[in-house]
């Protein structure tokens, strides 16, 4: 019974925690500008993240070590500094965007200026990561994030997409001069969905919860069903934006605009639900990104780490966390609009994907860590394809960013 409850909780939290500000921004813009023509990118990214999350969970459960631990042990500290430093830069944009998302969610609920809410958002994150236990951080916002399922309710309330719109699933309508923007959004969606921070957070979470070989079932169910269901909420946002924003030429260039889809379908209840969804998902992602950074740095340098430990027991882990939050706060205050920050963060994540993902090819075939749980042929082929995709996305993301000028 306890095992089934654990599986159900894992699925629910992965579902509710899938969407963050990056996924919301890219999904909203994709639907508003290209109808359903970028749903394929979301599905492709979801397939990749399901496989990668399952692998990192398996690695942590069987070896008793996190992905960061194994990276450092297997390739050495100098090599580890490469994914660590690139991840720190990408996560800075994402964390700042998440602070902005939280602030906008609060502003939409209260009518206050979102700029004044940004420090409050950062303060809330500092307090929670300082005091709350891991279980609460992992499960609380993710369960509340199930509110994103109301995006589907809105689609049904509007009567579903018309056949002409459905056709853009396989026949995307790309107007002249918009090809670069289309491809940039595809790369940004992949960057937003295949987030390396999620992998580091997931494998550290597996260690926090003391996963063992017996947890492999929970791992598979969480990765497959949780991530699978979670991605449907992002797809729903693409559909909703395509149905409501695109016909009015609204480009979804701010998070506030994306909520107009919910308001058109469900009235003021819908817009309030969108504001709550934005607040909750941004909070969950901000917590995950902050913790992932603390884990990465501490595990890389061999320091004490763990959210279950008291701050005095893992002082450097907590110091890194707080320092990083403060720097991200500064970026959020002086940087561009949160949606632009999220797009930049997704593009930069796309750029560094090969660095974070290429080691999977070797690690997941290392019997020293995985015993008989190493990858099979099919998993290896899938990993090669994902790494190849990561190289392509990395090569095109920045030129396309400059061309499309979001």
């Amino acid at each position, binding site marked *: 019974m306890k095992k089934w409850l654990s599986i159900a909780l894992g699925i629910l939290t992965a579902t509710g925690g899938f969407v963050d500000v990056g996924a919301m921004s890219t999904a909203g813009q994709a639907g*508003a500008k290209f109808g359903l023509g970028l749903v394929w990118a979301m599905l492709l990214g979801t397939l990749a993240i399901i496989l990668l999350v399952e692998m990192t969970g398996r690695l942590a459960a069987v070896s008793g070590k996190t992905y960061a631990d194994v990276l450092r042990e297997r390739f050495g500290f100098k090599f580890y500094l490469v994914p660590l430093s690139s991840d720190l830069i990408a996560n800075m944009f994402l964390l700042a965007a998440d602070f902005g998302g939280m602030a*906008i969610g609060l*502003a*939409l*609920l*209260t*009518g*206050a*200026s*979102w700029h004044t809410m940004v420090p409050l958002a950062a303060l809330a994150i500092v307090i929670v990561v300082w005091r709350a236990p891991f279980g609460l951080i992992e499960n609380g916002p993710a369960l509340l994030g199930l509110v994103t399922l109301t995006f589907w309710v809105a689609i049904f309330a509007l009567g579903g997409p018309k056949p002409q719109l459905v056709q853009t699933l396989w026949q995307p309508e790309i107007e*002249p*001069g*918009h*090809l*670069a*923007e289309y491809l940039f959004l595809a790369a940004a969606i992949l960057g937003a969905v295949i987030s390396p921070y999620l992998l580091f957070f997931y494998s550290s979470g597996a260690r926090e919860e003391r996963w063992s070989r017996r947890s492999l079932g929970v791992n598979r169910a969480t990765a497959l069903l949780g991530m699978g269901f979670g991605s449907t909420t992002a797809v729903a946002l693409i559909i909703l934006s395509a149905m409501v*924003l695109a016909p*009015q*030429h*609204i*480009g*979804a*260039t*701010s*998070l*506030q*605009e994306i*909520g*107009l889809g919910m*308001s*058109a379908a469900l*009235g*003021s209840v*819908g*817009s*309030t639900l969108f*504001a709550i969804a934005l607040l909750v998902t941004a909070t969950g992602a901000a917590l995950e990104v902050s913790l992932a950074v603390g884990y990465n740095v501490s595990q890389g340098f061999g320091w004490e780490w763990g959210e279950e430990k008291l701050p005095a027991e893992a002082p450097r882990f907590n110091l890194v966390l707080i320092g990083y939050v403060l720097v991200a706060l500064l970026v959020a205050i002086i940087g561009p*609009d949160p949606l632009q920050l999220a797009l930049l963060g997704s593009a930069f994540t796309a750029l560094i994907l090969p660095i974070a993902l290429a080691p999977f090819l070797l690690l997941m075939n290392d019997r020293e860590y995985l015993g008989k749980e190493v990858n099979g042929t099919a998993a290896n082929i899938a990993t090669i394809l994902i790494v190849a995709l990561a190289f392509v996305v990395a090569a095109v993301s920045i*030129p396309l960013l*400059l*061309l*499309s*000028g979001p």
Partner: protein
Amino acid sequence: LIVTSLGACGWSQPARAQLAEEAAGTFSAAAATLAALHEGKLTRQYAAASFEAFREQATAAVEGIRSFLIPETAEQSLDWATAALRAPCFDPGCDWEGQLESLRGVVRELLATAAT
């Protein structure tokens, strides 16, 4: 090199069209927000927080558009619409329908500018 080549091959729009489309999107969102508020489909808090973002976005986009040569009618529509963004009519007694017309008018003008 890649950026210049792809730009020349028509993968991206000229800056003028990009700016006009971006501004049209913002003004259209403002019109939709104002209409939704007065139809009871949006809370006043949501509308107030949204208009803050619209003002910030439009300021940058409108400055960019004015640096290009645009028709006089579009200039005038931009003035009216920008005024509506600065002081939106959230109360029923105020002429919100006039503002809505201004916002929708500038969207038409900007989309026409982007297309030329």
